[in-house]
């Protein structure tokens, strides 16, 4: 019989994104968060007065809100936050051509395969390094059709009215402690506008890289998908491994107008010293569709629950997530769907794998308001445990006020079956191969929705992680 209780330490050694780029930032704030830092960031960005006021008010809210006592272990976070740099400006200005990006930074993204992917499969690319977008580019055909894909700072500068109409309306600063923090110190991220009826046939991608030690990254993204449009946005995240802890807290606001279809994919592979506390929310109007595809593989602790507010009749929302928690990792993820209009539908599918001392938590909300008749929602959570030191939790909240609705939630927890392993090994596979095959089968329903290149990458990661998981 195969044994899967002897686990060798994997993870850090095999984390393939650990490389440090030598560079000298052009500006760096002091450590910790205070009013001075907030004013510095705003001044560096040469912002209008209202944005500085917005930031300062958010800082007050942040200071007033207690640290969450639920979710992951945040007991040491205040110490970490005192030590990190909240703003690091890597270069003078954002570039539109890779040739103009400083060579060491450019090389970083080349090692991550970004320019190559851009040429082959993407409609546009944004690349963030430390606190700023260093590169942003959109293919000409989409530019010609009025698509806007820019850094958030340029969104504010070049499209002030559209920006102000939506910024902070989907996720108010006071939503939670970390949305308040992001609202105070946000820097980098994308501003996206897809005009009415425009359908992008290839994805837009933003890539987030943290290079420096003890760094905080606070990207802010605002996306407006106008009526009848269709687009797919992908974000990827990595960082080198340091012995100290780093921090990433994004706020992603999305407005999906009537009849539009938007998909937001995250492949999060932060290093295992990263706190990743993100707020993502979409407003979904009549007959529009919002899909969150959320892959959480890296970080020390992730707390992230992408949500869909189904405000218009016939709106559809889905959250499909894969979480992988290896030694020392805690993925506290899930999704929220709020049915506030009739004939709205939603689906949450969550698959998690916990290995070694990893812990995966599903936390979700399904809410149906009175009057949202014919609302349908289905939630499925499956957790796979690889070792007896792994842990999984499931915390769904189901709040139903409408009789004419149909709401279901199911969750299962299981381990990789010895019979399954035995069967595959009898077919000549070694244990690691068999384990990887089983895990791949487990996540396949979600992985198959990824663009091919990402699905391949995900499978490769799983294989790497499963090596040495059985002894």
């Amino acid at each position, binding site marked *: 019989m195969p044994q899967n209780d002897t686990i060798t330490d994997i993870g850090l050694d095999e984390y393939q994104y650990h490389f440090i780029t030598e560079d000298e930032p052009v500006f760096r704030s002091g450590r910790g968060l205070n009013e001075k830092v907030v004013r510095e960031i705003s001044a560096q960005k040469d912002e209008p007065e209202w944005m500085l006021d917005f930031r300062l008010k958010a800082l007050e809210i942040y200071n007033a809100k207690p640290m969450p006592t639920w979710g992951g272990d945040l007991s040491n976070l205040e110490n970490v936050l005192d030590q990190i740099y909240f703003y690091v400006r890597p270069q003078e200005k954002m570039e539109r051509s890779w040739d103009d990006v400083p060579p060491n930074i450019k090389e970083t993204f080349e090692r991550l395969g970004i320019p190559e992917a851009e040429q082959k499969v993407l409609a546009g690319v944004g690349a963030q390094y430390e606190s700023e977008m260093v590169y942003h580019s959109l293919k000409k055909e989409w530019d010609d059709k009025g698509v806007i894909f820019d850094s958030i700072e340029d969104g504010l500068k070049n499209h002030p009215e559209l920006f102000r109409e939506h910024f902070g309306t989907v996720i108010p600063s006071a939503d939670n402690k970390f949305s308040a923090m992001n609202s105070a110190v946000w820097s980098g991220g994308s501003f996206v506008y897809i005009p009415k009826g425009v359908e992008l046939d290839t994805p837009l991608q933003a890539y987030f890289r943290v290079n420096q030690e003890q760094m905080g990254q606070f990207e802010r993204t605002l996306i407006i998908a106008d009526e009848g449009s269709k687009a797919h946005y992908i974000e990827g995240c990595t960082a080198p491994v340091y012995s100290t802890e780093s921090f990433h807290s994004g706020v992603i606001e999305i407005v999906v107008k009537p009849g539009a279809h938007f998909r937001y994919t995250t492949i999060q592979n932060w290093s295992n010293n990263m706190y990743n506390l993100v707020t993502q929310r979409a407003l979904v109007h009549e007959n529009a569709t919002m899909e969150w595809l959320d892959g959480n593989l890296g970080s020390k602790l992730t707390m992230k629950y992408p949500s869909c507010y189904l405000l218009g009749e016939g709106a559809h929302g889905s959250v499909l997530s894969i979480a992988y928690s290896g030694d020392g990792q805690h993925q506290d993820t899930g999704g929220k769907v709020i049915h*506030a209009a009739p004939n709205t539908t939603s689906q949450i599918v969550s698959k998690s794998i916990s290995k070694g001392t990893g812990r995966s938590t599903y936390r979700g909300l399904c809410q149906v*308001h009175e009057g949202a008749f014919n609302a349908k929602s289905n939630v499925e959570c499956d957790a796979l445990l690889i070792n007896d030191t792994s842990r999984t939790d499931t915390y769904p909240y189901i709040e139903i006020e409408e009789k004419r609705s149909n709401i279901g939630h199911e969750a299962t927890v299981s381990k990789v079956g010895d019979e399954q392993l035995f069967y595959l090994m009898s077919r000549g596979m070694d244990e690691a191969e068999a384990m990887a095959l089983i895990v791949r089968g487990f996540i396949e329903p979600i992985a198959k929705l990824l663009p091919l290149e990402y699905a391949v990458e995900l499978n490769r990661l799983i294989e790497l992680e499963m090596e040495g998981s059985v002894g």
Partner: protein
Amino acid sequence: MAEWVRAADRSACEGDGCVHAVTPDGERIVLARWEGEIFALEDECSHQEFPLSDGSVENGQIECVFHGAKFDLRSGRATQLPAIKPVKTYPVEVREDGIYVQVG
């Protein structure tokens, strides 16, 4: 039956932006002043039942301090997520001897 009850002294809600919790007749009501006018709303956010009287008033709206939801003072309509549902509003009269609200 709807009846007028005295909710507070006139001095309890002076100055724009003033927010004051009262419980006339056992109902939890928040009085809020904006541009010289006093409004009365149910003192409970429709999102997670947090008292609105802990929040602040700006641009004719009251903001819940818990998650940033906002409500229009006049209509009680939710104007900012995460709230979607309205809160109840009450008619207000400022009389010689105090602020009255119509409850029930």
